[in-house]
């Protein structure tokens, strides 16, 4: 926007060039396709749903997901918890719940919502929340 204005100014000072008198609506954004939220969610649900997911892939997926600037949707977490069950890893399942609470940061309403959504899965798989085990505080 600044560059086009400057160019237009220079164009008026020198000769008028058709290339510089382009309409304001043409902006210089990237042409890459932006992934929608649903596409992102389903991609990650598919990732964790792989039947022969190994421990490295679980760890890599979780660490990458936590690295993003977002709190994962309950359906992604459900898929990840089921992957923990397939790998017989209860500790990682509890760790994932702790990580979700940490990711919510100051937004204290996110974690109770996520737990509420995951409650059927937690009961089915027998995963205790950090609060139930008492490790949510020092």
């Amino acid at each position, binding site marked *: 926007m600044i560059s086009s204005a400057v160019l237009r100014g220079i164009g008026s000072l020198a000769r008028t060039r058709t290339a510089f008198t382009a309409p304001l609506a043409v902006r210089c954004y990237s042409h890459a396709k932006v992934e929608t939220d649903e596409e992102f969610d389903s991609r990650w649900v598919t990732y964790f749903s792989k039947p022969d997911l190994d421990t490295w892939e679980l760890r890599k997926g979780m660490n990458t997901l936590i690295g993003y600037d977002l709190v994962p949707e309950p359906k992604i977490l459900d898929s990840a918890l089921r992957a923990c069950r397939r790998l017989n890893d209860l*500790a990682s399942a509890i*760790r994932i719940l702790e990580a979700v609470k940490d990711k919510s940061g100051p937004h204290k309403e996110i974690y109770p919502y996520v737990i509420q959504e995951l409650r059927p899965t937690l009961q089915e798989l027998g995963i*205790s929340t950090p609060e139930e085990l008492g490790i949510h505080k020092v």
Partner: protein
Amino acid sequence: MFTCTVSPTRSLSLSLSLSFHSPPTRVFSRSVSVNSPSRDIRIKLCTFFPPCIFLFVILSSLSSCLRKTMLHVTAGRIAGLLSRRGGAAFSSSSSRMASHGHVGVTEQADMSVPLYCDRLDTPLPDRPYKDTLSAADESLKQKEKGPWNSLSKEEKLTLYRMMFNETYAEMKKPTGEWKTVWGGIFFFIGLTGLVVLWQTHYVYPPQPPTFEDEWQAMQVKRMLDMRVNPVEGFSAKWDYEKGQWK
């Protein structure tokens, strides 16, 4: 008129004629140090030393405050650079000794195997915390392969502690490091103050006579007699009829 004598052993002395016919000035005929060479070195050292301590304080507090962030590396490097410039003699030789395998050196971690780390942004580290399991741990691990509903709370906790060292709550607990930082800052500021006090007594040359109250009074009278800034400044504030400040 006034005469000006410069000698290497005595301070610059101005023999002024106090008749107020000429303004007090100094003749900068040549750039000669007014102090003795030894005093010169002392002055240079002592003016350099306190700012050095101060900078070191600020940087060490910076580096300790930013220990957990990426800026730690830059702050540490800057501190290292400055301390090296400040005095090579003061640098510790412990780092050099460590590479020669002397007694009392800490063991270095084997970087060729996956390491465990407690990090908020890495919920699942590269390896479990406890990798050598006792027989009881092994049997618990076997039980983990069955339905988790059959595990008690204590068993779940044991499994967690086998896999991880600190919980998220323990990782996030406050360290009280800020007390050390502030304490260090105040301590070194105080130390700097003591150094400056010592300097004022042992290093600084005697105060010029122009600082004395009598001289200042005579100077003010002279400035008023000269009508310095009579319109809006100095003499404008003096009431010449009443002989007092307005």
